[in-house]
């Protein structure tokens, strides 16, 4: 059978399913690390969130009579929800988060491509505000030998609590952690001895800290992010603008709440803690909810970085990345409206090239 269609008669081979598959591949190492350090409990959390997301997508597909499981977007959402859960969280919480993400955030707006907020991110924020204490109780990774500590705060919230109590004026966050007797891994201690980089930062980079399942190992997340960049699933604009803005603001003003003054913020320590890396590479880059032009992506990334910094440094919550990204999701249509590419033949305005 011969077909007649409009041009072009060639295609690059880019495909929605392939894009989602790349994201899944990029997330797997970090998930595996989470399961390794937090045990099978973490695997159960990942399984429940993944299963609920896929099942919800399937059931809603039955209702609307369209099968959208093949595009794998529900798998990505389910994985991301699970990765954003503390390892010891009661299993109904990831289930609620996944169902909320798929059913409310994605499907009520028309399914893939029509949602205004990143489903996984919104799911996480929903359960975070509904079950705040369960969502902020973390277990210690097995790579930290402090076995007697069953559950502890993440470095981010620990530092925040101490600093706001006023007992630590003039101490850096690293000094606070060591004053509190927070353990470090033996590898990190060796690296500290060899290079002088604080063992706390090394542990945060490698993933030897209490935290959410999928966001502790920054090393593996960055590797996953680089994989997405190489496969051209994402561009550099959002992660670089996001982390860059956050770093600059943290360096300038991040020391203020600790009583260290201007230009004494600890950039490395803050970049490596919390969900910033996961957010910058995997959540903010969600195509559906980020701008379409490169100029717009830079603006979006800068906004994410600035809000993350503001909430983290001056807000009352320990974690801020997800709320910051949600806020920027809201203004994405506005960014797209004003950040249009330069029309060919028009004089360049302000030198920005798209």
């Amino acid at each position, binding site marked *: 059978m011969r077909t007649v269609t409009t041009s072009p008669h060639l295609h690059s081979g880019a495909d929605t399913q392939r*894009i989602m598959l790349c994201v899944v591949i990029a997330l797997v190492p970090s998930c595996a690390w989470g399961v390794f350090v937090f045990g099978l409990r973490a695997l159960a959390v990942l399984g429940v969130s993944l299963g609920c997301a896929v099942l919800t997508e399937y059931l809603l597909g039955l209702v609307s009579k369209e099968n959208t499981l093949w595009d794998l977007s529900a798998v990505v959402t389910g994985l991301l929800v699970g990765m954003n859960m503390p390892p010891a969280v009661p299993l109904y919480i990831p289930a609620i988060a996944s169902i909320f993400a798929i059913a409310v955030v994605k499907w009520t707006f028309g399914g893939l*491509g029509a949602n205004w907020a990143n489903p996984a991110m919104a799911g996480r924020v929903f359960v975070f505000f509904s079950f705040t204490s369960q969502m902020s109780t973390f277990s210690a990774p097995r790579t930290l030998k402090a076995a007697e500590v069953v559950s502890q705060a993440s470095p981010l919230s620990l530092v925040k609590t101490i600093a706001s109590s006023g007992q630590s004026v003039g101490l850096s966050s690293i000094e606070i952690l060591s004053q509190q007797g927070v353990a470090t891994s033996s590898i990190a201690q060796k690296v500290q001895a060899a290079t002088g980089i604080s063992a706390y930062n090394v542990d945060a980079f490698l993933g030897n800290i209490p935290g959410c399942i999928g966001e502790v190992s920054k090393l593996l997340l960055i590797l996953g992010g680089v994989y997405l960049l190489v496969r051209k699933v994402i561009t550099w604009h959002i992660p670089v603008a996001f982390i860059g803005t956050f770093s600059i603001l943290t360096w300038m003003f991040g020391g203020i709440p600790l009583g260290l003054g201007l230009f004494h913020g600890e950039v490395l320590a803050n970049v490596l803690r919390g969900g910033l890396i996961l957010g910058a590479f995997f959540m903010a880059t969600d195509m559906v909810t980020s701008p*379409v032009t490169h100029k717009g992506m830079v603006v979006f990334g800068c906004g994410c970085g600035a809000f993350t910094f503001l909430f983290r440094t001056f807000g009352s919550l320990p974690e801020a990345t997800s709320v910051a990204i949600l806020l920027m999701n809201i203004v994405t249509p506005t960014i797209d409206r004003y950040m249009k*590419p330069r029309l*060919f033949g028009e004089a360049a305005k302000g030198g920005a090239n798209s």
Partner: protein
Amino acid sequence: MNLSTFKKGGVHPPEMKEYADSKSLERLPIPSELIVSMSQHLGAPAKALKAKGEHVEKGEKIAQASSFISADVHSPVSGTIKDVRKVTMANSVVCDAFVIEPDEQQPELFNKRIDYKDLSREKLLEEIKDKGIVGLGGATFPLHVKISIPAGRKVDALVINGVECEPYLTADHRLMLERTKEILEGIMICNRIVDPARTIIGIEENKKDAALALEREIELRSLPIEVCLLRMKYPQGDEKQLIKATIGREIPSGKLPLDVGAVVVNIGTTHAVYEAIAYGKPLYERVVTITGDCIARPCNVIAPIGTKVCDLVSFAGGFSNEPDKLVSGGPMMGFSFYDEDTPIAKGTSGILAIKDRKDYRKSACLNCGRCVAACPIGLVPTRLYSLITNARYDEAMSNHLMDCKECGCCSFSCPAHLDLVQAMKFGKRMGRKK
């Protein structure tokens, strides 16, 4: 070597030139029937000068330009007009056409060299118009209109388009290799008419052999022509992108190359100019690449205008596989058609018979921005798509829909497999109506 290209957007489709780029030009035997359309150019259809039953000579004018932007049509053969009827061209345009049955014996014509050294610019232009020459790159704009430079306008650069950026096509490549001298002579004729400060041939680097051949000949005869090798990128063969790549200027929206001091002429056109001026031969045949993964013997043939696709395909050994698509032109901008009796026209640079990918699945737009990054004009195809599919044509028009030239970069890169180009074409039609 640091090669130039245009900066904004563009894609890298697979080249697919290997099917035919080593195949020398061959001459198609005169087919048993030709269908010569009266609308083979941009602008108004030509007016018939002959009627059914009349006998025509090879090269005789059979239809005349009917307005300023229009072109004459000549008979490719000596023969009898069997019929004048409506015909559907590959681009779905329905127009009047002569059905010509060629005589047994064809005369040898247009093989005597004409001395044109003393002809004035006006006389040369007149000759070009009289020989029905149009741009052979695909847009088929009447050449005499394009290279008539209004008094007071100065041309900085005459850019010769040897880019042939469409995958599969090798017609211009073969011409540059095998008719190097003829092309250079054609370029010098255009040069005399246009009188530019510079003359530049733009060639993509996958045709280095052609660039070298041209350079050698230019040096030998010390002609005032530069050869500019360009880095591969589609759609570099578009006037806007080619002018940006070669002389670094951008044509603003709605303007012509002349507005930035440039004139672009295609390689195939320069060859036609050479034949018209040096031998008095009207444009009644052209090089067509017959290629694709379903053609048994891909080749580059010199075929009379009006040859039916079935005759071309059987000359190329027939189909090796049943093709999913027949395409007139390149795969990025060419038209797919159904009927093998469709005739070729002046603008037909190739006939493709290809298998189609059928394993893809459409999804909703992901807002990924790949189309935005690929658009060489700086449009937001995803936005235009949603405006057009929601019947908001006016808004699409004010978002520069008319600047879209349907190059296909957006559809090519869309992971959701949306029919973006189709929407643009539809949107333009609906927008124009209002």
